[in-house]
């Protein structure tokens, strides 16, 4: 897509200085991410001092090698991947539907993936991540298409889309609990997974979902510029050289890949895709070329931060990350919707 530069709506300082400030901000976000990554490896049932983290990572014969490589590192990498996926998916969905409340969790996409996984695990005997990532993608694709059909068109308001998503969530949730009810073995497996947790991560999971998430990220980042054009309306976008139908299809594919893979690996997680783009928009403004990289860096900070918090608060066990993000993200959602602008369609 060779759309010319889209004029930026925000005013404030001249472009060059603003770009420099944003780049510095992004660098700061990356530093924050590195800190959280180290924390996520260090904190847990057995806390490791920084020096041990380092030796555990690098020296095969160190005593910490097993802890770090078998458990903490896959978990941290999965958090990084899933967080990035959810954050970017939320950001492009909000841009696509022009809806500030779009979030893969709230709109039922993650629940669609988890319902498909529940079916696969119970009726088809699929238990390994390699098998059910495909079902998760299928479920996510179906719900994404449905949500977009319901809420993406003209005349759809934030509240209506959120309501349609909540209704889908309720349906899928009751479906999953019906499955858990019919089969106690599924209940035991699924009840941990449906909260949203990084605890079951191993290196096989990470390598299995990573390709999907990376492809999804590339598609989403590639769509950033034409999506900016699309924000001006279909006609203006066409005039700028973008093809609206192609962009929409690309975004739906990206969201499906990102949410399906993330959900297959760690269960349905809400609010990450909502929270991060909102916080980031306050820094970068609506330009997706900056918004998406920021989200990709800051969303895993939130997810891993929530995970570390869950490990600290839940000692000697842990609180599942899905529960922590729900409790952290919920109040922000409530704050967003009680401001009068969103609440009055």
């Amino acid at each position, binding site marked *: 897509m060779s759309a010319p530069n889209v004029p930026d709506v925000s005013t404030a300082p001249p472009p060059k200085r603003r770009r420099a400030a944003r780049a510095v901000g992004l660098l700061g976000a990356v530093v924050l991410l590195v800190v959280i990554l180290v924390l996520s490896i260090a904190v847990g049932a057995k806390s490791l001092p920084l020096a041990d983290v380092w030796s555990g990572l690098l020296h095969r014969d160190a005593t910490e090698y097993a802890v770090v490589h078998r458990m903490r590192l896959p978990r941290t990498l999965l958090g990084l991947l899933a967080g990035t996926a959810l954050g970017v998916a939320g950001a492009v969905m909000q841009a696509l539907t022009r809806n500030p*409340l779009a979030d893969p*969790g*709230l709109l039922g996409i993650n629940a669609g993936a988890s319902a498909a996984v529940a079916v696969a695990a119970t009726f088809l005997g699929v238990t390994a991540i390699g098998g059910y990532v495909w079902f998760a993608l299928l479920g996510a694709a179906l719900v994404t298409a*449905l949500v977009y*059909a*319901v809420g993406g*068109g003209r*005349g759809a308001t934030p*509240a*209506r889309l*959120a*309501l*349609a998503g*909540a*209704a*889908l*969530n*309720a*349906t*899928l*949730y*009751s*479906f999953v*609990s*019906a499955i*858990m*009810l019919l089969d*106690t073995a599924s*209940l*035991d497996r699924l*009840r*941990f997974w*449906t*909260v*949203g947790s990084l605890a079951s991560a191993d290196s096989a999971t990470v390598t299995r979902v990573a390709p999907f998430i990376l492809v999804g990220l590339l598609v989403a980042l590639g769509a950033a510029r034409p999506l900016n054009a699309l924000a001006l309306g279909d006609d203006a976008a066409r005039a700028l050289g973008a093809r609206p139908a192609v962009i929409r299809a690309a975004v739906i594919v990206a969201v499906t890949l990102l949410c399906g893979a993330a959900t297959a690996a760690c269960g349905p997680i*809400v*609010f990450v895709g909502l929270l991060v783009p909102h916080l980031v928009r306050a820094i970068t403004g609506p330009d997706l070329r900056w918004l998406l990289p920021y989200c990709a860096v800051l969303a895993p900070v939130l997810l891993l931060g929530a995970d570390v918090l869950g490990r600290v608060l839940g000692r000697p066990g842990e*609180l*599942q990350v*899905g*529960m922590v*993000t*729900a*409790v952290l993200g*919920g109040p922000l*959602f*409530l704050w967003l*919707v*009680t401001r*009068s602008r*969103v*609440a*009055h*369609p």
Partner: protein
Amino acid sequence: MSARTNGLSTMTVLRTPGGLSVRFRPRALAVGLGAAVLAAGLGLVALGSGDYPMGPTDVLRALTGGGSVAEQFIVTELRLPRLVTALLVGAALALGGAVFQSLVRNPLGSPDILGFTQGASTGALVVVVLGGGSLALAGAAVVGGLATGLLIYALAWRRGVHGYRLVLVGIGVAAILTGVNGYLLTRAPLMDAARAVLWLTGSLDGRGWANAGPLLAVTAVLAPLVLVGCAPALRMMELGDDTASALGVPLRRLRLVLLASAVLLVSFAAAAAGPVSFVALVAPHVAKRLTRAPGPNLLPSMALGAALLVGADLLAQRAFPGHQLPVGVVTGVLGGGYLVWLLAVERRAGRL
């Protein structure tokens, strides 16, 4: 006595010589009566079917005090409490749902979507995790539902409560509570977790008079209050807040009373049978489609809700011989299908 039919809105007015008049829609009346008859018929079938099958006449004889001692025991002690619970839960959920949908002016604004049933579930799950009998569980469900209702109302309050803010706050609270519920489920031992999921789905297995009693009391008080006291004002509220206040409707007080009644009805229904999904969403819709009448259609909704739950329970018990499903599975599947269809239709009509 004279009857006059207004050709435009199919409204009928009956007048007595003494100056009393009653106004009704024949179609709505027919739907309400039809649903009530359907509920009664399904109830008769439910009372007669089971490991000891009985014909309708035998059931009626046992109900009126005849028949053998065994038959009387089976009908009045084993099957009747379950049927009464089903009827009451269906009616209470449908009434609560109709009030909610009318209050928030959205066809999807039902208590299972707005967080109230999730709140009741949280209360019940806390009891499951901490350990406690079924009475404590029911009590905790009521407390949880009420507390959530209060929380949502307080959060949505800004110089009055408006429909959309209530919806959005409800969705947010529902999402938070779903996370909390999932967490609580992982804290319970597996056997208790299975019991909790059964409760969360909604089941009528083994319901006795102790379950039906509190719900009966609450419904007996609140249903007349809503139907007689608030329904006319609710109909005016659907014209819009400004018009309604111009017509003399005390908006704030009315909303509070209606919301409190609906939350109480739903919470007690959840305490009796668990949060049976989608009855509150579907029954008022079907009522509206059948009666083709504007307004909340409270009475037809109640009758349809009762018929729906009894029918679903019958289906859940008999659909797979040798394997009893909880009623919530049936309503969940039916309701989910209906919802997808509804989203498509309402979207095309531009109402959603």
